[in-house]
């Protein structure tokens, strides 16, 4: 019995030591796993950073790749003289008024020319004409004593005709200027 019991105690002790050993082993492994777990945490953070960097670099790479492809295509087109490089500097719009001399300029120029041309012609003719028109020409150039300069004596009928002519020319001038102004205003308002 004793022996039996002894055998049993041995057995139980062996069993206990075995279990203790297993516990220690388990504890050790638990420690190991905990350490591993904490390392995994760190590595996961590292991984995420790396993954983000990778993603950014990949996008840059793809963009560069696309641009390279574009450049290659346009270079090919340029070498083949087919392509057109267009760049919009300023968007196109419809001008409010046509460029170049406008009606106002032509109208003003016409009036000025119409007044200046006859006067210039008259002046030129008077400059060229050698006939005597001033008393100074007689007294200074020819050295003749000039006693008097007699103005034209108007007959009443002549004076009336002269006045009529003057009034007519004033009317014509006023009508011309008014006509030009009227056409200009109508044109500006878009009637014509």
């Amino acid at each position, binding site marked *: 019995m004793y022996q039996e019991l002894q055998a049993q105690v041995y057995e139980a002790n062996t069993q206990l030591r075995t279990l203790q050993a297993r516990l220690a082993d388990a504890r050790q492994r638990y420690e190991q796993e905990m350490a591993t777990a904490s390392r995994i945490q760190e590595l996961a953070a590292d991984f995420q950073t790396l993954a983000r960097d990778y993603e950014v670099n990949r996008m840059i790479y793809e963009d560069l790749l696309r641009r390279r492809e574009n450049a290659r295509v346009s270079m090919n087109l340029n070498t083949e003289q087919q392509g057109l490089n267009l760049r919009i500097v300023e968007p196109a719009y419809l001008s409010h008024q046509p460029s170049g001399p406008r009606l106002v300029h032509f109208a003003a120029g016409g009036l000025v020319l119409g007044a200046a041309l006859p006067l210039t012609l008259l002046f030129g003719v008077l400059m060229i*004409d*050698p*006939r*005597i*028109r*001033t*008393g100074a*020409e*007689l007294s200074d*150039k*020819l050295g*003749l*004593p*000039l*006693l*008097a*300069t*007699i*103005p*034209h*004596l*108007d*007959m*009443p009928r002549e004076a009336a005709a*002269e*006045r009529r002519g*003057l009034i007519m020319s004033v009317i014509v001038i006023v009508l011309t200027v008014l006509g030009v102004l009227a056409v200009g205003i109508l044109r500006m308002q878009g009637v014509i």
Partner: protein
Amino acid sequence: MSKIEEALRRAQQERAQDPAVAGGAVPDRQDRSGRTEDERQPVSRGELVGLTAAEEIAHMREERPRGPAELTQLRIIDPETADPRVADAFRQLRTSLLQKSTDSNFVLVVTSAGNEGGASFVALNLAVAIAFDESKTALLVNANLRNPSLDRLVQTEGEAAGLTDYLGGSEKEVRHIIHPIGVPRVRLIPSGRQSRAAAEYFTMPQLRHLLRSLRQRYRERYIIIDAPPVTQSADARILSELADYTLLVVPYGKVTSTQVSEAALAIGEEKLVGCVLNNELRIPLLSRSAQRRAR
């Protein structure tokens, strides 16, 4: 007028005292004594010459004086109605001529430097301007036989006797060729009825004699001869030989300076008294306002 009236009164008094002077001092067309002009001359040029001249001029009444409208129609200046600038120009011309002649009267030839130069117009109005002065008279002589435009002024009916009649001998009396023209103190000797070449008349000694007697008769009478253009014929040159002065009319804008200097050369420096620029152009607006200002 008061000076002339005073002179008249004094002359009447003198005449009443001195019968030798009586009847001698009457103007040409009222010569009741029947003596010819030349016979009358020494009497009228006595001591009383200033008085008698004034008296005679005062007696020169116009039978048919022309109205302002008629004067304007005939292009005769009028101190009241005409364009004052034209009248002033003629006054200025008259004054400078009178200054040159100092105290004696003169025989003046008016000729132009080109055809249609207005010598007749200037001669006529110069005579009228001289006669503005009530103590002076003017006698126009129309020696422009080719274009006797002044003859239209004669108021006598029918064809009036004139210069060629006297020089040709068909009219003996000087007073018969002197005609009134309806302007106070201005008389005219028309060209006349004869038609012979002008130069023939003007070289006659009678013309020299006529001019001298016309000039010497009245000290206050100025004789103005309307001559044809100096460039057209020798008439003007011959006449200027007989006259004291020659006035050259230069039409505005019609002749060149070469033509004028040729005309001046033809007249000669000693006879040429000066020149007149005639018919100057005016700008209507300016002249009208100037006219209004002058009025």
